[in-house]
């Protein structure tokens, strides 16, 4: 088990290093921020001065060396626009996104698991058909657009909820729903498929033959075995929220999370900040995957002994 975790950790480090290196190469070798930061009529001397100031006039290998030593000290340099350490700028925005995506995930799971289980218990019933159709829609509708439509309906027309920004819980309702729809669809589908598979297993009949309440047969016996697929999909979706959905959704609702910071830093070509953001997001994803992996032995005890 320890060896298994160690191998997973090693993989996580490789992924984080790979993404960081890729972004490093993209930004330092191909891109040139001086062009963006200075007005078009800037003199050559201005350009050299700025390049020197940003430290991008050194040989690329020196830059890489500095970058790597920096990373080991948790130092990604100063954000060019915020004049603060890039990592702390990025980390400052993380809790908000984690909170929002946590709420969205919880929302998705609360609906997805019962809906998926009920659909699997009564395949081809009306409930199953409605659920399947809705989850398909949830997967296909672009969520940033859905956010706009929800604003149009619930904020601009009905005036039930605020359009955007931060404040009390009401400001989180629409973003959380928008964020939850896609994971909800995907997780519902996976719960249904996994449960259909498990409910066909003979151990389910054994459990029934003991006189167990059908609810417990389904929840305690079948759902636990379907758990690996469900947990895996949920982990992936949580990762996708943080690394993807949050970017557009936070932009739509004007929310101060890591996603809108990604959009801003890219707009400003703030390389140290982009680097720090990539690192933080990649670390989040790999940590989530690692946590998911660690739940596997609970669902499949075979793994405890490997």
């Amino acid at each position: 088990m320890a060896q298994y975790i160690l191998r997973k950790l090693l993989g996580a480090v490789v992924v984080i290093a790979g993404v960081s290196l890729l972004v490093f190469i993209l930004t330092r070798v191909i891109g040139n921020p001086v062009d963006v930061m200075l007005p078009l009529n800037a003199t050559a001397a201005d350009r050299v001065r700025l390049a020197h100031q940003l430290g991008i006039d050194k040989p690329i290998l020196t830059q890489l060396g500095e970058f790597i030593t920096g990373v080991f000290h948790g130092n990604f340099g100063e954000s060019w626009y915020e004049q603060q350490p890039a990592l702390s700028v990025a980390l400052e925005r993380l809790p908000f996104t984690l909170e929002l995506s946590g709420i969205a995930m919880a929302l998705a799971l609360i609906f997805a698991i019962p809906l998926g289980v009920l659909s699997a218990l009564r395949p081809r019933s009306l409930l199953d058909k409605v659920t399947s159709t809705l989850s398909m829609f949830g997967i296909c509708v672009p969520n940033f657009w859905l956010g706009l439509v929800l604003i149009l309906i619930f904020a601009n027309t009905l005036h039930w909820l605020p359009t955007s920004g931060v404040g009390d819980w009401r400001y989180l309702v629409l973003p959380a729903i928008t964020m939850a729809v896609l994971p909800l669809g995907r997780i519902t589908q996976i719960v249904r498929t996994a449960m259909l598979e498990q409910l066909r297993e003979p151990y389910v009949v054994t459990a029934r033959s003991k006189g167990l309440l059908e609810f417990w047969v389904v929840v305690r016996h079948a759902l636990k075995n379907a758990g690996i697929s469900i947990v895996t999909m949920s982990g992936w979706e949580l990762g996708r929220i943080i690394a993807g959905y949050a970017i557009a959704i936070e932009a739509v609702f004007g929310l101060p999370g890591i996603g809108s910071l990604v959009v801003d830093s890219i707009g400003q070509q703030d390389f140290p900040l982009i680097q720090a953001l990539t690192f933080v997001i990649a670390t989040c994803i790999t940590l989530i995957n690692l946590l998911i992996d660690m739940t596997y032995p609970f669902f499949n005890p075979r793994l405890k002994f490997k």
Partner: protein
Amino acid sequence: MKQPHDILEHVTPLLSVKNLKTYFRSEEGGVIKAVDGASLHIRPKEILGIVGESGSGKSITAMSILRLIPSPPGYFAGGDIVFENESLLAKTQKEMRLIRGKDISMVFQEPMSSLNPAYTVGYQIMENIMLHQKVSKNQALEHAVDMLKLVGIPSPEKRVHDYPFQMSGGMRQRVMVAMALSCQPKLLIADEPTTALDVTIQAQILRLILDTKDKVGSAIMLITHDLGVVAEVCQRVVVMYAGKVVEVAYVNELFNHPAHPYTEGLLSAIPRLDETRDRLTIVPGSIPNPARMPEGCRFHPRCQYADERCRTEQPPLVSPKPGQWVSCWRASGVEGSEADVAATAEA
């Protein structure tokens, strides 16, 4: 001629299945008559064998007794199942749950997949105990260990914490037996309990079922397609064919004087040491499609004695002599004492 069995004929049955009809609605809208008017009974502490090819309805009958037929598509189209003078079909789901695992329990064919891979075997035995007995968790665990000891699992206090994948097929089947017997059921239904196992293990498990039965005092309904197993352990045999009971008899009667041509066919398929034959005789043809059962006697397309009457009229289940029942025009033609089906179950 007085049979020693005659006295047994007056013992009240523990469970009687009376003219049971378990149908399934097929996806195309038709009706599949998996069990179509089956009658049988089992007495307390008796070992009854049910034999038949796969698809004869023997497993569906067993599942019907525990009311474990998935519905839809399955449903009861008629008949009754009476256990200790109470109709099981009339019971509510809640009442049924109190019977399952306590009064009637079941051992299944697949020891590999019939245990939940995600829980320890101890948990799965304890689950059954705690459902039906008011005991603490520790007491249940002790009881589970005792049961494992009873079924001959070495160092049971350790193995009780094992997961199914840590055990061999034979071990798992022992666990299944331990689980099924943990609440001292009055009836144990064993559905092909040895089919998936190695031959040597098969004998051990059969031995085990017989031994523990004596300790626990259950009646056993042993479902099998293996007449050899029946000859070894059963007192009486029910032969099923295409959803119907075609013959019921005491084991030695059945083996020495099979009354139904199908039984005859099954028996001649068993190789015997005292005979030399060039090839095994098997019953020619195959079991009919349950969605399109033949008219008349269901066995007639495969029967060498079939005549016009067999092709058009279904033979009733009659008793040519005490303890024997057969559904064949030849048998009912030879000796009288005709009886209707419902009466069979009362016997």
